[in-house]
């Protein structure tokens, strides 16, 4: 842990004219947010933000709480999944946040009991997802729908979907035979495999190029307006972190786990750690198309009101930096 300033409750979003800015960054304590973990552990953020900025991190256990904090003005920037990002966008009618970068892609699979070998065998089975309307939940429902299997939000239909929290409870229920499988993110999918499950669908296989967004970096619009340079510093840190992860994977694993250990008191088991890093790709590309598709799917399965995502991205700062860095630019 290299960056925490617990002083004051920080209202950096207003800037309030002082030269000193506090940036309140939220993320989740899991490997899909490894960009944040490594960035903090290796000091990429503090270095790039400079001495004029105090970085204050808030760690949550679920994206919903992050959305809540963002909308309540308690966070300036946050690593969030696609769903919380869409939620925050929709709830504030496009006024609260902007996605300024991607962070991670991939890392989810449908794992089922070993006897099940085809989609059609799922009929009458019960499957877990992390929570109603989250990315995996939508993916599963849409996948079943496109294979002609019906589901309902209350667990009815051809396939019974049970949103089970926490994810570990789903693993436990799978292990003790209460459910037949689940569409779970890393490392829980690998844990279910370790408990005798088998990957029926790797989510990556459903997406063009095997890429779909798992983690975004969003900022509060007010903060972006007031402190563009700080946001740019944050992005620099994140690019550096992802770079580091991709170039020194095993060192990054160690760093991420070290950061998790400070946060949670105990890191991941090495098997889970390795599996997660293997499944997840860390990229600054927000894979905008997958977000739109994701939203469309959610609307299709009735878990989202139709929403226009026009303007949810502000990738200008990222592209400026990528260009300067000699990397490929990304498109919304």
């Amino acid at each position, binding site marked *: 842990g290299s960056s925490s300033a617990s002083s004051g409750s920080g209202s950096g979003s207003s800037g309030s004219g002082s030269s000193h800015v506090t940036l309140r960054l939220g993320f989740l304590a899991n490997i899909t947010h490894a960009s944040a973990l490594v960035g903090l552990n290796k000091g990429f953020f503090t270095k790039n933000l400079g001495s004029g900025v105090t970085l204050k991190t808030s760690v949550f256990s*679920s994206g*919903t709480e992050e*959305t*809540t904090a963002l*909308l*309540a*003005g308690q966070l300036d920037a946050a690593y969030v999944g696609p769903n*919380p990002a869409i*939620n*925050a966008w929709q*709830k*504030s009618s496009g*006024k*609260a946040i902007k996605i300024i970068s991607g962070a991670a892609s991939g890392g989810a699979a449908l794992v089922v009991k070993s006897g099940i070998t085809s989609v059609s065998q799922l009929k009458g089975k*019960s499957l877990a997802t992390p*929570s*109603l*309307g*989250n990315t995996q939940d939508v993916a599963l429902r849409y996948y079943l729908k496109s294979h002609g299997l019906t589901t309902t*939000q*209350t*667990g*009815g239909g051809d396939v*019974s979907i*049970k*949103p*089970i*929290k926490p994810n570990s*409870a789903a693993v*436990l*229920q799978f292990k*003790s*035979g*209460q*459910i037949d499988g689940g569409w779970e993110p890393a490392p829980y999918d690998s844990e279910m495999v370790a408990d005798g499950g088998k990957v029926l669908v790797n989510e990556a296989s459903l997406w063009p190029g095997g890429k779909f967004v798992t983690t975004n970096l969003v900022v509060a619009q007010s903060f972006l307006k007031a402190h563009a340079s700080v946001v740019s510093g944050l992005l620099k840190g994140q690019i550096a972190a992802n770079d580091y992860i991709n170039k020194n994977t095993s060192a990054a694993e160690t760093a991420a786990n070290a950061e998790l250990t400070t946060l949670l008191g105990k890191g991941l088991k090495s098997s889970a750690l390795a599996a997660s890093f293997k499944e997840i790709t860390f990229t600054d590309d927000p894979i905008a198309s997958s977000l739109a598709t994701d939203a469309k799917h959610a609307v299709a399965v009735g*878990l989202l009101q139709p929403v226009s995502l026009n303007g949810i991205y502000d990738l200008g700062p990222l592209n400026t930096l990528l260009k300067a860095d000699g990397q490929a630019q990304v498109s919304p």
Partner: protein
Amino acid sequence: MAIETPQEPAAALAGLDQLELAPPQQAKRHILAKTWAAAWPKLLALVLALVIWQLVYLSGFKSAILPGPATTLTDLWHQLHHAQLWSAIGTTLRRAVIGFALALVIGTVVGALVSRIRPLRAAVGSLITALQTLPSIVWVPFAIILFGATTTAILFVVVMTAAPAIANGLIAGADFLPPLLLRAGKTMGLRRVSLYRHVIMPATLPAFVTGLKQGWAFGWHGLIAGEVVVIILGQPSLGVFLSNDQDQADMAGAISIILVILAVGIAVDLLFNLVNGRIRRRWGVADNSAS
């Protein structure tokens, strides 16, 4: 053995204790007034709460995330017109009642034993409070391991959270039993079970009812925690609704469910109050709350 009364002095004294009954008064006249007296503060509180809420909303405080009363109540109104919500309320209430009934039996037996058997008290007395501090999610994995994803698992969580509170209520009551009453019971030849039934139990009734109330509240913690994890097909429940709404950051929906839970809680408390009021009238402590 019949007891004979000396006749003369009794007759002379009869007038001494002659009961004079007042003419039956306008007995039921007050029923409307009473209902009104109980209702208006609640209504006033409700209106006040709504007004404050609306003012907060209008002030724009956290309005990106905090819905106003209009939005929320509309949401609630719509949900109330769906069979879904009613079915969820039904399911959750049924589980609450069954779980509570089980906890009642277990908590009462445990509380009775622990409060009366000294070594048992020393052994597990403190454990009961410690069990109460365990967050309800702790029980969920055990419930799943023991009972799978079944209603029984949910009930298990309810019992594990509610029973210690009920037992503790009983123990607390027994601790402050007036010793004179206990001695009176003993000189009458009441022993063990009959002493418990005829003296200790009724004497601790007030504390016991308080314990029941706490047990009910604790049970709900367990119930919702259980319902979120153990989802049973075709049985929508308030726990699932709440967690779904929270997951989707649907604050209006979540607050609607919270209001439903509060309404149930208030209804149950009114029920407890009926019992409590009855006990208080019996004990002659009904007029205490007046200043």
